[in-house]
């Protein structure tokens, strides 16, 4: 029973990681790519870490996994915000230039 639960966690996590990577490759510009990689990517690796915590089943490991997931969910919006700010400045600047030329 526990094996089936762990296997499902791993499969779901791998699926979401793959979805995130496909989004990273296929979506049209920086902001939408960021949307795919931060949300689906963090969800995928969190699910895989939860699966490994269930498999190893020790208090210390579970505490570390919870800390890792909390840290990922706390920091990935901050990182995405900073990349997005840099990208938006670049994008709006090229947009202004195109308008001035046209």
């Amino acid at each position: 029973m526990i094996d089936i639960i762990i296997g499902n966690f791993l499969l779901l996590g791998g699926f979401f990681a793959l979805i995130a990577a496909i989004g990273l490759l296929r979506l049209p510009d920086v902001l939408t790519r960021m949307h795919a990689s931060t949300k689906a990517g963090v969800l995928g690796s969190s699910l895989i870490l939860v699966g490994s915590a269930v498999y190893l089943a020790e208090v210390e490991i579970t505490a570390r996994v919870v800390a890792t997931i909390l840290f990922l969910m706390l920091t990935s919006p901050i990182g995405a915000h900073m990349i997005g700010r840099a990208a938006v400045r670049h994008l709006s600047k090229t947009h202004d230039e195109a308008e001035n030329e046209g």
Partner: protein
Amino acid sequence: MTPAAFLELSIYASFVMVMLSLAIAFVRLAIGPSLADRVVALDMMTVTIIAVCGVAAVATGVYALIDVALVLALVGFLATVALARFAERRDAKREEARHD
């Protein structure tokens, strides 16, 4: 199919999916038109390597891989912030140079 066999199969399947997503993120890192695309791809690769650590911990039963995942999460955040600030500052510098 016994539960143990299902776990074995799902470990292999999730290894394949995670490694495939790592390869796809590397493609984006190689072709990404702007610097921000490459930073996003590197961030995604760090998160995916954390997932690889989780799957490897299940496959081998080595506890230390969870510590590796925790440290990678910490270091990856710092790398993303540093690269994003670098990209932002480089753009600002170019703009200054244009105005001079």
